[in-house]
């Protein structure tokens, strides 16, 4: 005799385990990317705007040079701080630092992230140091106008 009642009932729930796995991976990815971006850039820099900038698709091998304006203005020979990965690099050592980075990674791309108000006399030494280190391309970080 066939008894209908003992037929095992199948679980009709959707299996959400793979969904949770993927979502967790995405969250960890966003957290890590945010953390890395925070470490590479420094707060307190107002980036200048430019109409003719472009996106940089390949962001590998970037070296971001942050030029942070002095807190009290430019009086009394105060100069902007040069920060790379949150480490302050003295002006006099920038060329040798870049040379070392270039020798370790010949594909290195320098991104200059300078405050809009910084006088050119503090920007020019950075450009000269890059040129002396043999870095043939500098990317000026800007923002879209508006």
């Amino acid at each position, binding site marked *: 005799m066939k*008894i*209908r*009642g*003992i*037929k*095992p*009932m*199948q*679980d009709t*729930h959707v299996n*959400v*385990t793979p*969904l*949770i796995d993927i*979502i*967790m991976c*995405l*969250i960890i990815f*966003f*957290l890590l*990317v*945010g953390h890395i971006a925070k470490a590479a850039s420094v707060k307190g820099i107002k980036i*200048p*705007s*430019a*109409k*003719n*900038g*472009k*996106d*940089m698709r390949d962001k590998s091998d970037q070296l971001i040079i942050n*030029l942070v304006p002095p807190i009290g203005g430019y009086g009394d020979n105060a100069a902007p701080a040069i920060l790379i990965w949150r480490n302050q690099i003295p002006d006099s050592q920038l060329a040798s630092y870049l040379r070392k980075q270039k020798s370790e990674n010949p594909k290195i791309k320098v*991104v200059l992230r*300078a*405050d*809009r*108000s*910084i*006088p*050119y*006399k503090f*920007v*020019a030494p950075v*450009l*000269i140091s*890059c*040129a*002396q280190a*043999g*870095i*043939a*391309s*500098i*990317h*000026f*970080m*800007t*923002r*879209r106008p508006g």
Partner: protein
Amino acid sequence: MPLSTKHKSRGMHGAHHVGPNMTPMVDVVMVILIFFMLGSSFVSPDWYLTNNTPAIKGGLSNVKTNAMPPTRINIKLRVRGTRTIAILPGLQTADLSGELASFLTNKHKALVKGVPVQIFISPSNGVPYKDVITTYSDCIQARFKQVAFRPPPAQ
């Protein structure tokens, strides 16, 4: 009680889901994910102006300016009061990214096609970085490809 009904009720007891209820967790995780995705889209993407600087071995004295194209335009940037003015042959303007951009565009159109032109941007010490960038952006807008920055004049 009929036999068939008894068996049915036992079968239903066996089908209860015994694992943890994942629904609230999925809800929370989805909210976090949407927050991160929206947060990243609100951050304006980086926007770059790329410049090809000459690599110098042994300092500035080794820059070979004679290796650059003979047709050159020198854009001097000077500070007048609170404004930056651009000075170049045939134009003196404080309207960067306006008058300067259209002047450079017309200049580029007037040039013989295929003749390379070297632009020099020569800011003085006090010119703000944003004006240097605006001038450089104007040069790119006018389709000049070879743009170099001169060190500021010695004080």
